[in-house]
Protein backbone atom coordinates (compact mmCIF):
# COMPACT_ATOMS: atom_id res chain seq x y z
CA UNK A 1 0.00 0.00 0.00
CA UNK A 2 1.27 3.43 -0.89
CA UNK A 3 2.58 5.65 1.85
CA UNK A 4 1.13 8.63 0.15
CA UNK A 5 -2.38 9.32 1.40
CA UNK A 6 -4.89 11.50 -0.35
CA UNK A 7 -6.96 12.48 2.67
CA UNK A 8 -4.67 14.10 5.23
CA UNK A 9 -4.53 13.58 8.96
CA UNK A 10 -3.96 9.84 8.92
CA UNK A 11 -0.81 9.82 11.01
CA UNK A 12 -2.17 12.33 13.49
CA UNK A 13 -5.57 10.72 13.96
CA UNK A 14 -4.31 7.14 14.08
CA UNK A 15 -1.44 8.09 16.35
CA UNK A 16 -3.75 9.82 18.79
CA UNK A 17 -6.29 7.00 18.62
CA UNK A 18 -3.77 4.28 19.33
CA UNK A 19 -1.99 6.23 22.07
CA UNK A 20 -5.20 7.15 23.85
CA UNK A 21 -6.62 3.63 23.46
CA UNK A 22 -3.45 2.19 24.93
CA UNK A 23 -3.31 4.60 27.86
CA UNK A 24 -6.95 4.41 28.84
CA UNK A 25 -7.95 0.85 27.97
CA UNK A 26 -5.17 -1.50 26.93
CA UNK A 27 -2.45 -0.79 29.49
CA UNK A 28 -4.85 -0.81 32.46
CA UNK A 29 -6.46 -4.05 31.26
CA UNK A 30 -3.01 -5.53 30.64
CA UNK A 31 -2.06 -4.54 34.18
CA UNK A 32 -5.04 -6.51 35.44
CA UNK A 33 -4.02 -9.62 33.52
CA UNK A 34 -0.38 -9.29 34.54
CA UNK A 35 -1.37 -8.94 38.17
CA UNK A 36 -3.72 -11.93 37.98
CA UNK A 37 -1.48 -13.96 35.69
CA UNK A 38 1.50 -13.66 38.00
CA UNK A 39 -0.18 -15.82 40.61
CA UNK A 40 0.06 -19.21 38.99
CA UNK A 41 -2.61 -21.84 38.32
CA UNK A 42 -2.81 -23.18 41.87
CA UNK A 43 -3.64 -19.79 43.28
CA UNK A 44 -6.18 -19.19 40.49
CA UNK A 45 -7.83 -22.48 41.30
CA UNK A 46 -7.92 -21.69 45.00
CA UNK A 47 -9.56 -18.33 44.43
CA UNK A 48 -11.98 -19.29 41.69
CA UNK A 49 -13.12 -22.57 43.21
CA UNK A 50 -14.21 -20.94 46.44
CA UNK A 51 -17.92 -21.75 46.95
CA UNK A 52 -18.81 -18.08 47.28
CA UNK A 53 -17.19 -17.29 43.92
CA UNK A 54 -18.86 -20.23 42.22
CA UNK A 55 -22.24 -19.26 43.61
CA UNK A 56 -21.78 -15.67 42.42
CA UNK A 57 -20.63 -16.85 38.99
CA UNK A 58 -23.64 -19.12 38.66
CA UNK A 59 -26.01 -16.31 39.55
CA UNK A 60 -24.26 -13.77 37.33
CA UNK A 61 -24.09 -15.88 34.18
CA UNK A 62 -27.41 -17.64 34.80
CA UNK A 63 -29.43 -14.51 35.51
CA UNK A 64 -27.71 -12.70 32.62
CA UNK A 65 -28.57 -15.46 30.15
CA UNK A 66 -32.16 -15.67 31.38
CA UNK A 67 -32.54 -11.88 31.28
CA UNK A 68 -31.05 -11.69 27.78
CA UNK A 69 -33.40 -14.42 26.61
CA UNK A 70 -36.46 -12.68 28.01
CA UNK A 71 -35.10 -9.41 26.56
CA UNK A 72 -35.16 -11.03 23.12
CA UNK A 73 -38.82 -12.01 23.49
CA UNK A 74 -39.98 -8.71 24.97
CA UNK A 75 -37.71 -6.78 22.62
CA UNK A 76 -39.05 -8.55 19.55
CA UNK A 77 -42.64 -7.89 20.59
CA UNK A 78 -41.93 -4.22 21.24
CA UNK A 79 -39.97 -3.81 18.01
CA UNK A 80 -42.70 -5.47 15.98
CA UNK A 81 -45.35 -3.21 17.42
CA UNK A 82 -43.22 -0.08 17.02
CA UNK A 83 -42.26 -0.81 13.41
CA UNK A 84 -45.40 -2.38 12.00
CA UNK A 85 -48.33 -0.68 13.72
CA UNK A 86 -49.44 2.91 13.97
CA UNK A 87 -51.14 3.94 17.18
CA UNK A 88 -51.31 7.04 19.33
CA UNK A 89 -48.22 7.49 21.50
CA UNK A 90 -46.00 5.36 19.29
CA UNK A 91 -43.29 7.99 18.88
CA UNK A 92 -43.18 8.65 22.62
CA UNK A 93 -42.80 4.94 23.32
CA UNK A 94 -40.10 4.67 20.71
CA UNK A 95 -38.15 7.40 22.48
CA UNK A 96 -38.80 5.84 25.89
CA UNK A 97 -37.20 2.54 24.90
CA UNK A 98 -33.82 4.18 25.39
CA UNK A 99 -34.61 5.09 28.99
CA UNK A 100 -32.51 2.25 30.46
CA UNK A 101 -29.55 3.54 28.42
CA UNK A 102 -29.99 7.06 29.68
CA UNK A 103 -31.12 6.46 33.26
CA UNK A 104 -28.13 6.13 35.58
CA UNK A 105 -27.89 2.61 36.93
CA UNK A 106 -28.00 3.68 40.56
CA UNK A 107 -31.32 5.42 39.93
CA UNK A 108 -32.63 2.38 38.11
CA UNK A 109 -31.48 0.27 41.03
CA UNK A 110 -33.25 2.16 43.76
CA UNK A 111 -36.44 2.74 41.81
CA UNK A 112 -36.76 -0.90 40.70
CA UNK A 113 -36.16 -1.92 44.30
CA UNK A 114 -38.92 0.36 45.55
CA UNK A 115 -41.35 -1.08 42.98
CA UNK A 116 -40.51 -4.75 43.50
CA UNK A 117 -39.98 -4.66 47.28
CA UNK A 118 -42.61 -6.69 49.17
CA UNK A 119 -44.53 -3.48 49.91
CA UNK A 120 -43.89 -1.90 46.52
CA UNK A 121 -46.32 -1.20 43.68
CA UNK A 122 -45.69 -4.52 41.97
CA UNK A 123 -43.92 -6.37 44.77
CA UNK A 124 -47.08 -6.54 46.90
CA UNK A 125 -48.94 -8.44 44.18
CA UNK A 126 -45.99 -10.73 43.57
CA UNK A 127 -45.87 -11.41 47.31
CA UNK A 128 -49.52 -12.39 47.13
CA UNK A 129 -48.54 -15.15 44.72
CA UNK A 130 -45.64 -16.16 46.90
CA UNK A 131 -42.99 -14.61 44.67
CA UNK A 132 -40.31 -12.47 46.22
CA UNK A 133 -39.45 -9.60 43.88
CA UNK A 134 -36.62 -7.60 45.36
CA UNK A 135 -33.84 -9.14 47.48
CA UNK A 136 -33.90 -12.42 45.53
CA UNK A 137 -32.31 -13.90 42.40
CA UNK A 138 -35.56 -12.97 40.67
CA UNK A 139 -34.84 -9.33 41.52
CA UNK A 140 -31.43 -9.63 39.87
CA UNK A 141 -33.13 -11.03 36.80
CA UNK A 142 -35.61 -8.12 36.72
CA UNK A 143 -32.87 -5.51 36.90
CA UNK A 144 -30.84 -7.22 34.17
CA UNK A 145 -33.86 -7.48 31.87
CA UNK A 146 -34.54 -3.76 32.37
CA UNK A 147 -30.93 -3.03 31.37
CA UNK A 148 -30.86 -5.48 28.46
CA UNK A 149 -34.02 -5.25 26.40
CA UNK A 150 -33.31 -1.86 24.70
CA UNK A 151 -30.26 -3.51 23.09
CA UNK A 152 -32.56 -6.01 21.39
CA UNK A 153 -35.02 -3.36 20.22
CA UNK A 154 -32.30 -1.12 18.84
CA UNK A 155 -30.54 -3.89 16.91
CA UNK A 156 -33.67 -5.51 15.50
CA UNK A 157 -35.54 -2.29 14.67
CA UNK A 158 -33.46 -1.18 11.64
CA UNK A 159 -33.45 -4.71 10.22
CA UNK A 160 -37.21 -5.07 10.51
CA UNK A 161 -37.67 -1.62 8.97
CA UNK A 162 -35.47 -2.56 6.01
CA UNK A 163 -37.15 -5.91 5.60
CA UNK A 164 -40.16 -4.25 4.04
CA UNK A 165 -43.23 -6.23 3.14
CA UNK A 166 -42.25 -7.57 -0.24
CA UNK A 167 -40.98 -10.89 1.07
CA UNK A 168 -44.13 -11.37 3.10
CA UNK A 169 -46.30 -10.48 0.13
CA UNK A 170 -44.43 -13.01 -1.95
CA UNK A 171 -44.97 -15.66 0.72
CA UNK A 172 -48.64 -14.71 1.05
CA UNK A 173 -49.22 -15.02 -2.71
CA UNK A 174 -47.72 -18.49 -2.48
CA UNK A 175 -50.47 -19.38 -0.03
CA UNK A 176 -48.63 -19.19 3.28
CA UNK A 177 -50.68 -18.30 6.34
CA UNK A 178 -49.73 -15.39 8.58
CA UNK A 179 -48.12 -17.52 11.27
CA UNK A 180 -46.21 -19.56 8.70
CA UNK A 181 -44.95 -16.36 7.11
CA UNK A 182 -43.78 -15.09 10.47
CA UNK A 183 -41.99 -18.29 11.43
CA UNK A 184 -40.52 -19.16 8.06
CA UNK A 185 -39.86 -15.79 6.45
CA UNK A 186 -39.65 -13.03 9.04
CA UNK A 187 -38.03 -14.78 11.97
CA UNK A 188 -35.12 -16.25 9.97
CA UNK A 189 -34.45 -12.82 8.48
CA UNK A 190 -34.36 -11.27 11.95
CA UNK A 191 -32.36 -14.06 13.56
CA UNK A 192 -28.87 -12.53 13.13
CA UNK A 193 -30.09 -9.23 14.60
CA UNK A 194 -31.81 -11.06 17.45
CA UNK A 195 -28.59 -12.88 18.24
CA UNK A 196 -26.64 -9.64 18.16
CA UNK A 197 -29.21 -8.09 20.49
CA UNK A 198 -28.99 -11.09 22.79
CA UNK A 199 -25.20 -10.85 22.83
CA UNK A 200 -25.19 -7.15 23.66
CA UNK A 201 -27.79 -7.58 26.40
CA UNK A 202 -25.94 -10.58 27.80
CA UNK A 203 -22.54 -8.87 27.79
CA UNK A 204 -23.93 -5.81 29.46
CA UNK A 205 -25.78 -7.89 32.06
CA UNK A 206 -22.69 -9.87 33.10
CA UNK A 207 -20.87 -6.69 34.07
CA UNK A 208 -23.86 -4.80 35.44
CA UNK A 209 -23.42 -3.47 38.94
CA UNK A 210 -25.37 -0.33 39.82
CA UNK A 211 -28.90 -1.47 39.08
CA UNK A 212 -28.38 -4.91 40.64
CA UNK A 213 -26.79 -4.22 44.00
CA UNK A 214 -29.82 -2.39 45.39
CA UNK A 215 -32.40 -4.93 44.33
CA UNK A 216 -30.39 -8.08 45.00
CA UNK A 217 -29.94 -7.76 48.75
CA UNK A 218 -26.33 -8.93 48.38
CA UNK A 219 -26.47 -12.10 50.45
CA UNK A 220 -23.28 -14.10 49.94
CA UNK A 221 -23.97 -17.49 48.34
CA UNK A 222 -27.52 -16.42 47.48
CA UNK A 223 -27.90 -13.07 45.76
CA UNK A 224 -24.35 -11.85 45.35
CA UNK A 225 -23.14 -11.15 41.80
CA UNK A 226 -19.53 -11.30 40.60
CA UNK A 227 -18.93 -7.55 40.25
CA UNK A 228 -20.10 -7.09 43.83
CA UNK A 229 -17.80 -9.85 44.94
CA UNK A 230 -14.89 -8.01 43.31
CA UNK A 231 -15.82 -4.88 45.24
CA UNK A 232 -16.08 -6.89 48.44
CA UNK A 233 -12.57 -8.29 47.93
CA UNK A 234 -11.24 -4.82 47.21
CA UNK A 235 -12.76 -3.45 50.38
CA UNK A 236 -10.83 -6.08 52.30
CA UNK A 237 -7.69 -5.11 50.38
CA UNK A 238 -7.56 -8.56 48.75
CA UNK A 239 -6.29 -7.09 45.49
CA UNK A 240 -5.09 -10.40 44.17
CA UNK A 241 -8.40 -12.14 44.68
CA UNK A 242 -10.19 -9.20 43.06
CA UNK A 243 -7.81 -9.27 40.10
CA UNK A 244 -8.19 -13.01 39.58
CA UNK A 245 -11.98 -12.91 39.76
CA UNK A 246 -12.05 -9.95 37.37
CA UNK A 247 -9.64 -11.61 34.94
CA UNK A 248 -11.59 -14.86 35.07
CA UNK A 249 -14.83 -12.99 34.48
CA UNK A 250 -13.37 -11.14 31.48
CA UNK A 251 -11.98 -14.34 30.00
CA UNK A 252 -15.29 -16.15 30.32
CA UNK A 253 -17.31 -13.29 28.89
CA UNK A 254 -14.89 -12.72 25.99
CA UNK A 255 -14.99 -16.45 25.23
CA UNK A 256 -18.79 -16.44 25.29
CA UNK A 257 -18.96 -13.39 23.05
CA UNK A 258 -16.50 -15.01 20.69
CA UNK A 259 -18.56 -18.20 20.52
CA UNK A 260 -21.75 -16.29 19.85
CA UNK A 261 -19.94 -14.37 17.13
CA UNK A 262 -18.85 -17.64 15.55
CA UNK A 263 -22.43 -18.90 15.64
CA UNK A 264 -23.53 -15.64 14.07
CA UNK A 265 -21.00 -16.00 11.28
CA UNK A 266 -22.14 -19.55 10.68
CA UNK A 267 -25.72 -18.33 10.31
CA UNK A 268 -24.77 -15.57 7.91
CA UNK A 269 -22.70 -18.01 5.97
CA UNK A 270 -25.71 -20.26 5.40
CA UNK A 271 -27.81 -17.33 4.35
CA UNK A 272 -25.47 -16.38 1.54
Amino acid at each position, binding site marked *: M*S*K*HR*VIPGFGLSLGFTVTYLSLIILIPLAALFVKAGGLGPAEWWRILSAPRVLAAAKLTFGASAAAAMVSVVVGLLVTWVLVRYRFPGRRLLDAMVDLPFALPTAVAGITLTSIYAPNGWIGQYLAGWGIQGAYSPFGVFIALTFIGFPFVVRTVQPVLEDLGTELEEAAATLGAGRLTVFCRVILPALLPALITGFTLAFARAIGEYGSVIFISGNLPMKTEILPLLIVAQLEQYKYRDAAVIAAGMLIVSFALLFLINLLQRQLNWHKR
Partner: protein
Amino acid sequence: MSISIQSIHKTFGTYTALDDISLEVPDGSLTALLGPSGSGKTTLLRIVAGLEMADPGSGRILFHGNDVSEVTAGKRGVGFVFQHYALFPHMTIAQNIAFGLDVMPRDRRLNRAEIRERVGELLRLVRLEGLDKRRPNELSGGQRQRVALARALAIRPKVLLLDEPFGALDAQVRKELRRWLRQFHDEINLTTLFVTHDQEEALELADQVVVMRNARIEQTGTPQDIYDEPRTSFVYEFLGEVNKLPDGRYIRPHEIELRFAAEEGVDVTGRVSHLFVAGPFARVSVSPEHGRRGELEVWASRDQVEEMALANGDVIGLHFPSVKKPG
Protein backbone atom coordinates in the same frame (compact mmCIF):
# COMPACT_ATOMS: atom_id res chain seq x y z
CA MET B 1 -2.25 20.69 -21.61
CA SER B 2 -1.26 17.17 -22.63
CA ILE B 3 -1.26 14.22 -20.25
CA SER B 4 1.32 11.51 -20.55
CA ILE B 5 0.86 8.28 -18.65
CA GLN B 6 3.98 6.14 -18.58
CA SER B 7 3.95 2.45 -17.57
CA ILE B 8 1.72 2.77 -14.51
CA HIS B 9 1.10 -0.21 -12.25
CA LYS B 10 -1.43 -0.37 -9.46
CA THR B 11 -2.23 -3.24 -7.15
CA PHE B 12 -4.65 -3.47 -4.23
CA GLY B 13 -3.29 -6.27 -2.09
CA THR B 14 -3.11 -9.21 -4.45
CA TYR B 15 -5.47 -7.69 -6.98
CA THR B 16 -3.92 -6.00 -10.02
CA ALA B 17 -5.96 -2.99 -11.01
CA LEU B 18 -3.56 -1.56 -13.62
CA ASP B 19 -0.86 -3.50 -15.41
CA ASP B 20 1.73 -1.41 -17.21
CA ILE B 21 -0.50 1.30 -18.60
CA SER B 22 0.94 3.87 -21.01
CA LEU B 23 -1.14 6.47 -22.75
CA GLU B 24 -0.82 9.88 -24.40
CA VAL B 25 -3.71 12.31 -24.11
CA PRO B 26 -3.08 15.15 -26.57
CA ASP B 27 -3.59 18.78 -25.58
CA GLY B 28 -7.20 19.86 -25.98
CA SER B 29 -8.52 16.41 -26.77
CA LEU B 30 -11.56 14.70 -25.38
CA THR B 31 -10.49 11.17 -24.51
CA ALA B 32 -12.70 8.33 -23.32
CA LEU B 33 -11.53 5.48 -21.09
CA LEU B 34 -13.93 2.75 -22.10
CA GLY B 35 -14.28 -0.66 -20.53
CA PRO B 36 -16.44 -2.97 -18.46
CA SER B 37 -16.50 -2.61 -14.69
CA GLY B 38 -13.34 -3.90 -13.08
CA SER B 39 -11.23 -3.04 -16.12
CA GLY B 40 -9.25 -0.44 -14.17
CA LYS B 41 -10.49 2.66 -15.97
CA THR B 42 -11.67 4.51 -12.86
CA THR B 43 -8.47 3.63 -11.00
CA LEU B 44 -6.46 5.10 -13.87
CA LEU B 45 -8.51 8.29 -13.79
CA ARG B 46 -8.03 8.60 -10.03
CA ILE B 47 -4.30 8.11 -10.41
CA VAL B 48 -4.17 10.90 -12.98
CA ALA B 49 -6.05 13.08 -10.48
CA GLY B 50 -3.77 12.14 -7.60
CA LEU B 51 -6.65 10.57 -5.67
CA GLU B 52 -4.79 7.26 -5.79
CA MET B 53 -1.09 6.76 -6.02
CA ALA B 54 0.45 4.31 -8.48
CA ASP B 55 2.58 1.52 -7.04
CA PRO B 56 5.89 2.87 -5.78
CA GLY B 57 8.59 2.67 -8.41
CA SER B 58 6.18 1.98 -11.26
CA GLY B 59 5.70 4.73 -13.81
CA ARG B 60 5.13 8.46 -14.09
CA ILE B 61 2.33 10.86 -14.85
CA LEU B 62 3.37 13.94 -16.83
CA PHE B 63 1.29 17.06 -17.35
CA HIS B 64 2.68 18.99 -20.31
CA GLY B 65 6.02 17.27 -19.87
CA ASN B 66 6.27 17.95 -16.12
CA ASP B 67 6.34 14.97 -13.79
CA VAL B 68 3.41 15.32 -11.37
CA SER B 69 3.63 11.79 -9.92
CA GLU B 70 4.58 13.12 -6.48
CA VAL B 71 2.32 16.16 -6.56
CA THR B 72 -0.73 15.92 -4.28
CA ALA B 73 -4.24 16.06 -5.70
CA GLY B 74 -4.78 19.56 -4.36
CA LYS B 75 -1.74 20.94 -6.17
CA ARG B 76 -2.12 19.13 -9.49
CA GLY B 77 -4.68 21.59 -10.79
CA VAL B 78 -7.14 19.00 -12.03
CA GLY B 79 -10.87 19.43 -12.20
CA PHE B 80 -12.48 16.19 -11.07
CA VAL B 81 -16.18 15.40 -11.43
CA PHE B 82 -17.25 12.46 -9.30
CA GLN B 83 -19.70 9.87 -10.52
CA HIS B 84 -22.23 10.81 -7.87
CA TYR B 85 -21.08 14.44 -8.00
CA ALA B 86 -20.03 14.64 -4.32
CA LEU B 87 -21.69 18.03 -3.97
CA PHE B 88 -21.54 19.46 -0.46
CA PRO B 89 -25.15 19.08 0.76
CA HIS B 90 -24.96 21.80 3.39
CA MET B 91 -23.81 24.50 0.97
CA THR B 92 -25.76 26.41 -1.65
CA ILE B 93 -24.95 25.94 -5.32
CA ALA B 94 -22.98 29.20 -5.32
CA GLN B 95 -21.05 28.12 -2.22
CA ASN B 96 -20.32 24.77 -3.78
CA ILE B 97 -18.93 26.37 -6.92
CA ALA B 98 -16.95 28.93 -4.91
CA PHE B 99 -15.42 26.34 -2.57
CA GLY B 100 -12.18 25.88 -4.49
CA LEU B 101 -11.74 29.65 -4.67
CA ASP B 102 -12.53 30.15 -0.97
CA VAL B 103 -9.93 27.67 0.22
CA MET B 104 -7.06 29.12 -1.81
CA PRO B 105 -4.12 30.43 0.19
CA ARG B 106 -4.67 34.05 1.11
CA ASP B 107 -2.01 35.46 -1.20
CA ARG B 108 -3.59 33.92 -4.29
CA ARG B 109 -7.22 34.18 -3.26
CA LEU B 110 -9.58 36.45 -5.19
CA ASN B 111 -11.58 38.99 -3.24
CA ARG B 112 -15.26 38.45 -2.55
CA ALA B 113 -16.50 40.46 -5.49
CA GLU B 114 -14.22 38.65 -7.88
CA ILE B 115 -15.32 35.27 -6.53
CA ARG B 116 -18.96 36.26 -6.92
CA GLU B 117 -18.28 37.33 -10.47
CA ARG B 118 -16.49 34.11 -11.31
CA VAL B 119 -19.33 32.04 -9.83
CA GLY B 120 -21.82 34.01 -11.92
CA GLU B 121 -19.74 33.38 -15.04
CA LEU B 122 -19.62 29.65 -14.33
CA LEU B 123 -23.35 29.45 -13.62
CA ARG B 124 -23.95 31.06 -17.04
CA LEU B 125 -21.46 28.70 -18.66
CA VAL B 126 -23.29 25.62 -17.36
CA ARG B 127 -26.68 27.31 -17.88
CA LEU B 128 -27.80 27.31 -14.28
CA GLU B 129 -28.37 31.06 -13.86
CA GLY B 130 -30.70 31.86 -10.99
CA LEU B 131 -30.12 28.61 -9.09
CA ASP B 132 -27.23 29.99 -7.02
CA LYS B 133 -29.22 30.06 -3.76
CA ARG B 134 -30.57 26.53 -4.07
CA ARG B 135 -29.11 23.52 -2.36
CA PRO B 136 -27.98 20.36 -4.14
CA ASN B 137 -30.97 18.31 -2.97
CA GLU B 138 -33.33 20.73 -4.72
CA LEU B 139 -31.76 20.09 -8.13
CA SER B 140 -32.34 17.41 -10.73
CA GLY B 141 -29.62 14.90 -11.58
CA GLY B 142 -28.61 16.72 -14.75
CA GLN B 143 -28.42 20.05 -12.91
CA ARG B 144 -26.27 18.55 -10.15
CA GLN B 145 -23.97 17.13 -12.76
CA ARG B 146 -23.47 20.59 -14.22
CA VAL B 147 -22.92 22.12 -10.77
CA ALA B 148 -20.20 19.55 -10.18
CA LEU B 149 -18.68 20.53 -13.50
CA ALA B 150 -18.81 24.22 -12.69
CA ARG B 151 -17.25 23.58 -9.28
CA ALA B 152 -14.41 21.65 -10.91
CA LEU B 153 -13.87 24.39 -13.50
CA ALA B 154 -13.84 27.21 -10.94
CA ILE B 155 -10.23 26.59 -10.02
CA ARG B 156 -9.20 26.93 -13.70
CA PRO B 157 -7.92 23.37 -13.91
CA LYS B 158 -5.31 22.37 -16.45
CA VAL B 159 -7.15 19.15 -17.22
CA LEU B 160 -10.69 17.99 -16.63
CA LEU B 161 -11.39 14.47 -15.37
CA LEU B 162 -14.88 12.99 -15.36
CA ASP B 163 -15.79 9.69 -13.71
CA GLU B 164 -18.81 8.14 -15.45
CA PRO B 165 -20.21 11.61 -16.06
CA PHE B 166 -23.61 10.36 -17.18
CA GLY B 167 -23.76 7.15 -15.20
CA ALA B 168 -26.33 8.30 -12.67
CA LEU B 169 -28.72 9.91 -15.14
CA ASP B 170 -31.71 8.52 -16.97
CA ALA B 171 -31.54 7.82 -20.68
CA GLN B 172 -33.18 11.02 -21.95
CA VAL B 173 -31.07 13.41 -19.86
CA ARG B 174 -28.01 11.37 -20.70
CA LYS B 175 -28.36 11.99 -24.40
CA GLU B 176 -29.00 15.72 -24.01
CA LEU B 177 -26.15 16.21 -21.61
CA ARG B 178 -23.81 14.21 -23.80
CA ARG B 179 -24.42 16.49 -26.75
CA TRP B 180 -24.09 19.53 -24.51
CA LEU B 181 -20.78 18.32 -23.10
CA ARG B 182 -19.36 17.86 -26.61
CA GLN B 183 -20.25 21.44 -27.55
CA PHE B 184 -19.02 22.62 -24.19
CA HIS B 185 -15.68 20.94 -24.69
CA ASP B 186 -15.32 22.51 -28.12
CA GLU B 187 -15.96 25.94 -26.54
CA ILE B 188 -13.54 25.71 -23.63
CA ASN B 189 -11.07 23.40 -25.34
CA LEU B 190 -9.74 21.89 -22.13
CA THR B 191 -7.90 18.57 -22.19
CA THR B 192 -10.55 16.17 -20.90
CA LEU B 193 -10.40 12.55 -19.86
CA PHE B 194 -13.59 10.70 -18.99
CA VAL B 195 -14.49 7.21 -17.89
CA THR B 196 -17.45 5.34 -19.29
CA HIS B 197 -18.71 1.80 -19.73
CA ASP B 198 -21.10 2.85 -22.48
CA GLN B 199 -19.55 2.32 -25.92
CA GLU B 200 -22.11 4.53 -27.64
CA GLU B 201 -21.18 7.38 -25.32
CA ALA B 202 -17.47 6.93 -25.99
CA LEU B 203 -17.85 6.69 -29.76
CA GLU B 204 -20.19 9.65 -30.03
CA LEU B 205 -18.33 11.99 -27.70
CA ALA B 206 -14.61 11.35 -27.79
CA ASP B 207 -11.76 12.32 -30.14
CA GLN B 208 -9.77 9.40 -28.80
CA VAL B 209 -11.09 6.18 -27.31
CA VAL B 210 -9.04 3.95 -25.01
CA VAL B 211 -10.53 0.49 -24.59
CA MET B 212 -9.52 -1.20 -21.33
CA ARG B 213 -9.98 -4.70 -20.07
CA ASN B 214 -8.55 -6.60 -17.10
CA ALA B 215 -6.13 -3.87 -16.03
CA ARG B 216 -4.69 -3.42 -19.54
CA ILE B 217 -5.29 -1.23 -22.56
CA GLU B 218 -6.71 -3.27 -25.43
CA GLN B 219 -6.65 -0.60 -28.08
CA THR B 220 -6.33 3.17 -28.46
CA GLY B 221 -7.53 5.14 -31.44
CA THR B 222 -10.12 7.43 -32.94
CA PRO B 223 -13.71 6.20 -32.63
CA GLN B 224 -13.63 5.40 -36.34
CA ASP B 225 -10.46 3.29 -36.03
CA ILE B 226 -11.74 1.43 -33.07
CA TYR B 227 -15.07 0.65 -34.64
CA ASP B 228 -13.77 -0.23 -38.08
CA GLU B 229 -10.49 -1.89 -37.22
CA PRO B 230 -10.86 -3.62 -33.86
CA ARG B 231 -7.60 -5.24 -32.98
CA THR B 232 -8.86 -7.89 -30.57
CA SER B 233 -11.98 -10.01 -30.29
CA PHE B 234 -12.78 -8.23 -27.03
CA VAL B 235 -12.85 -4.84 -28.72
CA TYR B 236 -14.96 -6.31 -31.48
CA GLU B 237 -17.54 -7.61 -29.07
CA PHE B 238 -17.48 -4.66 -26.73
CA LEU B 239 -17.96 -2.00 -29.40
CA GLY B 240 -21.22 -2.11 -31.24
CA GLU B 241 -23.15 -5.15 -32.27
CA VAL B 242 -21.22 -7.88 -33.96
CA ASN B 243 -21.83 -11.39 -35.27
CA LYS B 244 -19.32 -14.00 -34.28
CA LEU B 245 -18.94 -16.68 -36.95
CA PRO B 246 -18.21 -20.27 -35.88
CA ASP B 247 -14.69 -20.08 -37.24
CA GLY B 248 -13.87 -17.21 -34.87
CA ARG B 249 -14.26 -14.43 -37.40
CA TYR B 250 -16.37 -11.33 -36.79
CA ILE B 251 -18.70 -9.35 -38.96
CA ARG B 252 -20.80 -6.32 -38.09
CA PRO B 253 -24.55 -6.44 -38.84
CA HIS B 254 -24.37 -3.68 -41.46
CA GLU B 255 -21.58 -5.45 -43.32
CA ILE B 256 -23.66 -8.52 -44.13
CA GLU B 257 -25.47 -8.36 -47.48
CA LEU B 258 -28.90 -9.90 -47.96
CA ARG B 259 -29.40 -11.94 -51.12
CA PHE B 260 -31.88 -14.47 -52.40
CA ALA B 261 -30.93 -17.96 -51.37
CA ALA B 262 -30.26 -19.13 -54.91
CA GLU B 263 -28.17 -16.09 -55.83
CA GLU B 264 -24.45 -16.18 -56.48
CA GLY B 265 -21.96 -15.39 -53.72
CA VAL B 266 -24.15 -16.65 -50.88
CA ASP B 267 -21.98 -17.69 -47.95
CA VAL B 268 -24.75 -18.94 -45.70
CA THR B 269 -28.46 -19.55 -46.07
CA GLY B 270 -30.92 -19.17 -43.25
CA ARG B 271 -34.46 -18.52 -42.17
CA VAL B 272 -35.70 -15.08 -41.13
CA SER B 273 -36.72 -15.44 -37.51
CA HIS B 274 -37.49 -11.83 -36.73
CA LEU B 275 -37.94 -8.73 -38.81
CA PHE B 276 -38.18 -5.21 -37.46
CA VAL B 277 -38.43 -2.09 -39.60
CA ALA B 278 -37.77 1.30 -38.03
CA GLY B 279 -37.78 4.34 -40.33
CA PRO B 280 -35.38 3.78 -43.21
CA PHE B 281 -33.64 0.85 -41.46
CA ALA B 282 -34.47 -2.79 -40.99
CA ARG B 283 -33.12 -5.29 -38.47
CA VAL B 284 -33.27 -8.85 -39.67
CA SER B 285 -32.50 -11.84 -37.48
CA VAL B 286 -31.52 -14.91 -39.43
CA SER B 287 -31.24 -18.49 -38.13
CA PRO B 288 -28.65 -20.20 -40.29
CA GLU B 289 -29.57 -23.57 -41.72
CA HIS B 290 -27.51 -26.76 -41.56
CA GLY B 291 -27.39 -27.02 -37.81
CA ARG B 292 -25.32 -23.94 -37.06
CA ARG B 293 -26.21 -22.46 -33.75
CA GLY B 294 -26.83 -18.80 -32.97
CA GLU B 295 -28.65 -16.16 -34.88
CA LEU B 296 -27.05 -13.66 -37.21
CA GLU B 297 -28.06 -10.03 -36.92
CA VAL B 298 -28.28 -8.12 -40.20
CA TRP B 299 -28.94 -4.40 -40.66
CA ALA B 300 -30.35 -3.61 -44.06
CA SER B 301 -32.24 -0.74 -45.65
CA ARG B 302 -35.99 -0.67 -45.58
CA ASP B 303 -35.98 -0.37 -49.37
CA GLN B 304 -34.10 -3.59 -49.80
CA VAL B 305 -36.30 -5.50 -47.39
CA GLU B 306 -39.40 -4.27 -49.21
CA GLU B 307 -37.88 -4.97 -52.61
CA MET B 308 -37.13 -8.55 -51.59
CA ALA B 309 -40.59 -8.78 -49.98
CA LEU B 310 -39.04 -10.40 -46.91
CA ALA B 311 -41.28 -11.90 -44.27
CA ASN B 312 -40.73 -13.99 -41.16
CA GLY B 313 -39.90 -17.57 -42.05
CA ASP B 314 -38.47 -16.84 -45.50
CA VAL B 315 -35.26 -18.59 -46.42
CA ILE B 316 -32.61 -16.13 -47.60
CA GLY B 317 -28.93 -16.00 -48.42
CA LEU B 318 -26.24 -13.97 -46.69
CA HIS B 319 -23.02 -12.68 -48.19
CA PHE B 320 -20.04 -11.72 -46.02
CA PRO B 321 -17.94 -9.30 -48.04
CA SER B 322 -15.26 -8.30 -45.56
CA VAL B 323 -14.83 -10.83 -42.83
CA LYS B 324 -12.00 -10.01 -40.43
CA LYS B 325 -10.17 -12.12 -38.01
CA PRO B 326 -8.78 -10.09 -35.11
CA GLY B 327 -5.16 -10.62 -34.13
